[in-house]
């Protein structure tokens, strides 16, 4: 990818105030990563595009964007890191493992089809040892299990049962469900559709592929761009026929809404961005225009809400928290921690697993102080990590909302 299409690198405006250092979760737990100030604007003064990369620590940054959020000079630190990471990995070569981790959409449906067998294998300790030895995927990490019926399959059935409540296109919304919802956490998709329908919307599924964020996170700009080039025209069709789009995974959403245009320069991505919303942001907008179904049952539970990094980067506040506070009986608290440490594919890698866990420990401690029954989070990566760290029940907030509405 030619450098001209990348956004302007603005490392020049860094004043070395070290505010970014105060929030970086990685440099908090390991000295191997020099911290955002050094890794980004600091090292950039020494990098030359025609010289080989020597930043062997650069892939310790997993793009949580916390540094970007607090840099008052406006340095796009994680972007600088990502571009440097891409160059480094392009030169060094990427292991097959990274391909496996970033192309799960290719074999996801196979996983569902053979789920009883696959799930058993994924839990088998010898298999996990083998996977670690061959591919350096840490055996301590629980690999997500597959569901036998995909979300798409469920939706097809659901639609054919004549569940169309509204015919007019004015109340139609398109749903980007994401790979994980489709094959590993179908109930999130179900809950999304049920809640949207309960608010008078017909839900459609535009043709869609993986959003590409696993690839982007591993510095594979080409692969990520391919996904975007497929998705954007499909989304535009939906938008131009009158449907806005919602997403239930904040990572997918951030990718499409911001990275497609900024980093990947996908044509017309800006138009999509204007009509793409986080699911709870969409519901909050409904609430503000008095179109929100608040027929809630009582739900006497103590839950903790954890805001994913990509949700913070979306800059929409905490809409899930705002909405769920309306449910009678529900005691919901915001968990005071900044990053779960999963970092997408980061936490699966053997050489990164312990860092991921150390970061997660701080979150686990915060959860422990709160002692909730259930944890809620809008990102599948966070949900995986929190389950792994605490063993508690972890759900997407939409699942609780669905429970309050329909049952």
């Amino acid at each position, binding site marked *: 990818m030619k450098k001209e299409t990348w956004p302007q690198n603005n490392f020049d405006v860094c004043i070395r105030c070290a505010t970014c250092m*105060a929030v970086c979760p990685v*440099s908090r737990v390991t*000295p191997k990563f020099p911290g955002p100030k050094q890794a980004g604007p600091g090292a950039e003064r020494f990098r030359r595009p025609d010289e080989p990369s020597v930043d062997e620590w650069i892939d310790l940054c997993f793009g949580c964007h916390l540094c970007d959020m607090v840099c008052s000079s406006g340095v796009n630190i994680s972007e600088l890191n990502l571009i440097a990471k891409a160059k480094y990995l392009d030169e060094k070569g990427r292991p097959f493992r990274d391909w496996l981790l970033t192309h799960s959409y290719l074999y996801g449906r196979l996983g569902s089809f053979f789920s009883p067998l696959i799930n058993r294998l994924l839990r088998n300790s010898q298999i996990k040892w083998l996977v670690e030895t061959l591919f350096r995927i840490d055996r301590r990490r629980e690999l997500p299990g597959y569901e036998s019926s995909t979300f798409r399959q469920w939706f097809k059935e659901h639609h054919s049962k004549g569940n169309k409540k509204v015919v007019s296109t004015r109340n139609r919304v398109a749903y980007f469900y994401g790979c994980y919802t489709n094959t590993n956490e179908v109930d999130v998709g179900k809950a999304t559709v049920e809640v949207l329908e309960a608010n008078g919307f017909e839900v459609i599924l535009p043709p869609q592929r993986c959003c590409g964020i696993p690839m982007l996170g591993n510095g594979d700009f080409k692969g990520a761009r391919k996904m975007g080039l497929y998705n954007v025209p499909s989304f535009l069709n939906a938008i131009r026929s009158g449907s806005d789009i919602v997403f239930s995974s904040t990572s997918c959403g951030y990718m499409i809404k911001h990275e497609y245009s900024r980093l990947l320069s996908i044509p017309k991505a800006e138009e999509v961005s204007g009509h793409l919303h986080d699911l709870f942001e969409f519901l909050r907008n409904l609430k*503000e225009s008095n179109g929100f179904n608040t027929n809630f049952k009582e739900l006497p539970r103590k839950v903790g809400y954890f805001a994913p990094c990509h949700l913070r980067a979306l*800059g929409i506040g905490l809409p899930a928290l705002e909405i769920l506070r309306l449910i009678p009986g529900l005691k919901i608290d915001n968990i005071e921690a900044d990053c779960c440490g999963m970092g997408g594919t980061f936490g699966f890698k053997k050489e990164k697993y312990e860092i991921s866990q150390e970061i997660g420990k701080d979150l686990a401690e915060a959860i422990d102080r709160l002692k909730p029954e259930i944890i809620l989070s809008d990102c599948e990566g966070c949900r995986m990590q929190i389950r792994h760290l605490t063993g508690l029940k972890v759900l997407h907030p939409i699942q609780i909302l669905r429970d309050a509405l329909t049952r």
Partner: protein
Amino acid sequence: MAHYDLIVIGMGLSGLMAAKTAAEAGQNVLIVGKGMGSLCLFSNSIDVLGQLPKTMRMRDGLSRWVKDYPEHPYSKVGPERIEKALSSFLSLFPPPYSFQAIGNENCLIPTGAGTRRPTYLIPMTMVGGASVDEGHTLIVGFKGFKDFYAHYVADQLKCRGITLSLPDVSNQEITATALTRLMGKKSFRENIGIEIKKQLHGETRVGFPALLGMNDPIQVKEDLEEIMGAEVFEIPILPPSIPGMRIFNRFKDWLIQKGVTFLLGYSVSKAILNGKRCEGIEVLRPPVTTSYSADRFILATGRFIGGGLKANDEKISEPIFNLPLSQPQSREGWFRKSFFNDLPHPIHQAGISTDPSLQPVDERGNLILENVWVAGSILAHHQCIDEKSREGIEIATGYMAAKFALER
């Protein structure tokens, strides 16, 4: 478009105070900002007016000050309301991690350069430093932590210093946040406590760089004191400021809990003006621009570091509302010929001029925007670096800007 009672622009201490004050009054508040202000840079303790003569009571000092400097932000607030503002701040920090003034006057605390600085409200973790005696204090540094040097501080304070080696950090650097995190672990504290105790030569106080844990610094302090049998205190160091972050985190958690919409990470790109009213603000998250409207707005965007004021090679401007600024005639007049002077550099006094209710006015004193108030260091006619008044101005004007706005 989302609508709020009040939008606070800026997430430094003045913005946070304004948001708190409004939220307490039941207002629907949005606070938007990029960065954490100077809290995590310079704010280790709460300066109110460090420049006052020693042993002058703060109340008397402030009363004198507002008479001598009628344009100063403190004069817009008044000594009584400054006190109320400080109380409001203090209410966020109930024991054990509370702030206190020693004898209602300024106290002197040691710094990372071995000097002493005057300040007013100090957290409980710094109280021991206010009475550093020669010969009774041990200063402790950490090998690999390059923003604090025990011998440097000790030599200047004329006491003893030691540098501890950290077991896992051989030949590596350790960042402030990593060391703070380690301090938060009981086993780590025990190890260093035992090690330091071995090296005590009868000292009764032990000074550390200001990173005694993020979430429960008092626990850290007490554990160390128990093991070593000596009083423990923290010393302000180079940025990032961990004590400042504690303040930020506390505000953040409180505001989110209270239902304030807390948008950290993006700056306001534009204000939507309609004559003398501000209708709303725009926030750009490329490629999307989102608008927010409100009845009232508080501008608390800080000075140059935070981008509240911008300077090209000719003049200074305020980028969001394009408010006129009180400033020196030309760039030549911004800074004096030497760095250290008896008088401050004139540029530090530049900023937004306001009427007594903290609303922005032009050179003739006419109100520019009827539903906008200004708070914090962006105000003109103060120079918080030399005065040692930064946090006091931020707290007092943040509090009052909200109060004034609510009266309308």
